């Protein structure tokens, strides 16, 4: 890893990171601000929610309507979408551009003619990607935790909260690895941002469809969202070993392939 390149990349992406942090934190804060009103009017609201199809509730990790009365259940049901979908969009946009933008911004000829190996460039940029995704998850999770503490004085199941946050982080990293891999496959120097965002939304749509339409429930297995467990109120809630293996295994494999491809890639501007 090259420190000069790493620090330049950190600065280059800092503003975007800040904007994403602020946006997600604001969304979480707004959602959590209605929690008290929700609890105070629980009979009316739960009555309304009970009309929602079971599958749609399960899709949000609600196996029992009373789960929503717990602050962690409410948080998981209403905020996970921001952290999972928006966080994954952030990750795929960042990773798909981090190497490729040097080509379509025509700066690759400066970077690749410095005394650096392709490996040093790859790992410096990968480190920036990991740190950015980690920081986004850390800040938004902290914001979520603080919001929960502000609206609920009762103790929160920190262990379940940490597992949920880890699932989100792993999902974001997986989408980042997909973006990185796709960017190394691209022959022509053009951004693939729209494609990356589309991919996250398609996977989310597949997952949603599988949850609300029983006849196509099996297609959910195609989507990485399927392997994030948001049922935080379940006493047996834990980090599933196979899910952990799925996220880390696929991410590492994609990063490994990306590294090999980048090391042999013809760079054009």
């Amino acid at each position, binding site marked *: 890893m090259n420190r000069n390149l790493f620090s330049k990349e950190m600065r280059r992406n800092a503003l975007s990171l800040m904007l994403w942090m602020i946006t997600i934190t604001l969304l979480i804060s707004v959602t959590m601000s209605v929690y008290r009103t929700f609890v105070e009017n629980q009979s009316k609201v739960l009555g309304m929610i009970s009309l929602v199809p079971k599958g749609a509730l399960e899709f949000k990790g609600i196996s029992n309507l009373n789960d929503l009365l717990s602050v962690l259940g409410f948080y998981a049901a209403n905020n996970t979408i921001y952290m999972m979908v928006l966080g994954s969009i952030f990750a795929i946009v960042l990773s798909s551009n981090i190497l490729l933008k040097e080509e379509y911004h025509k700066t690759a000829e400066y970077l690749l003619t410095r005394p*650096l190996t392709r490996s040093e460039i790859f790992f410096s940029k990968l480190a920036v990607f990991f740190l950015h995704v980690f920081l986004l998850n850390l800040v938004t999770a902290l914001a979520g935790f603080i919001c929960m503490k502000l609206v609920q004085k009762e103790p929160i199941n920190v262990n379940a909260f940490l597992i949920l946050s880890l699932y989100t982080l792993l999902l974001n990293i997986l989408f980042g690895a997909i973006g990185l891999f796709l960017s190394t496959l691209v022959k022509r120097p053009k951004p693939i941002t729209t494609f990356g965002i589309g991919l996250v939304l398609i996977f989310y749509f597949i997952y949603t469809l599988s949850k609300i339409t029983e006849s196509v429930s099996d297609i959910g297995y195609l989507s990485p969202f399927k392997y994030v467990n948001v049922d935080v109120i379940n006493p047996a809630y834990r980090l599933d070993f196979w899910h952990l293996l799925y996220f880390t295994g696929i991410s590492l494999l994609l990063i490994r392939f990306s590294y090999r491809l980048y090391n042999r890639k013809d760079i054009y501007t």
Partner: protein
Amino acid sequence: MSVPVIEISDLSKFYGKARGIEHVNLEIGEGEIFGFIGPNGAGKSTTIRILLNLIFPSGGSARIMGMDVIRETKKIKQVVGYVPSDASAYDSMDVHEFLSYCLRFYPVQSGTDRLEELSALFELDLKRKIAELSMGNRKKVSIVQSLLHNPKLLILDEPTTGLDPLMQAKFFQLLRSENQKGMTIFFSSHILNEVQLFCKRVAIIKEGKIIQLEDIETLRKKQLKKVYIEFGDSMNNEIFSIPGLEKIITRIGNRVSFMYSGDMNELVGLLSGREIVNLTIEEPSLEEIFMHYYK
């Protein structure tokens, strides 16, 4: 015998079925100013990109100062400077920030002094954002970044595009001075005048193949002459069948000019019985030679 600064052996690059370069062989010695000429798409940039490990060859090999351009690219780039034909620096940076960023990749001691010295020479405003710079100023930034670490080999790809004549003169003066200190210069261009004035040796590349590799002077003197004849009597077709007539440039009335690579005695013998008003035999310009090879 010293190791060539650039040594290219049987180098080829194909883009799918499309030809980039084919079986290119070149050897450039220490301290040379070497011209690499050819029109757009001839393979100049492809050759340079392989030397800098931006792209990988389909066959053959290339070495810089004895080091393989793929395996030892990091070491090579410590001693190579490069001015790309069309590259944008990071738009969000200002000039000083960009040049300092480039400089930090090298373990040079007097880099900051060099940065200031070169920026002053090219009249660069170090506080200006790269995004605000004109094409010419961007080119100046590109030139400065290539020289910051005192490279032993400088690779230039169409370096004068966008530079005004005054800056071009300063640029060439600087290059000559660096060359006198020992820097080898690989100068790729399609502007023949600057190659003619600046380079000692030249390779002409056509459709991915080196078709001529000569000293500039040898190339000029090599047989090819530009002949202009004005006949006093009517011109007959005998002159057009003389061996060595390469290309008729103009033919108006009794006047004809052509490129000739044949025996001069034969030409003079042919003309001896004719009434000649005017006869000029001159060295063609490099451009005319170039066009001859590209005919």
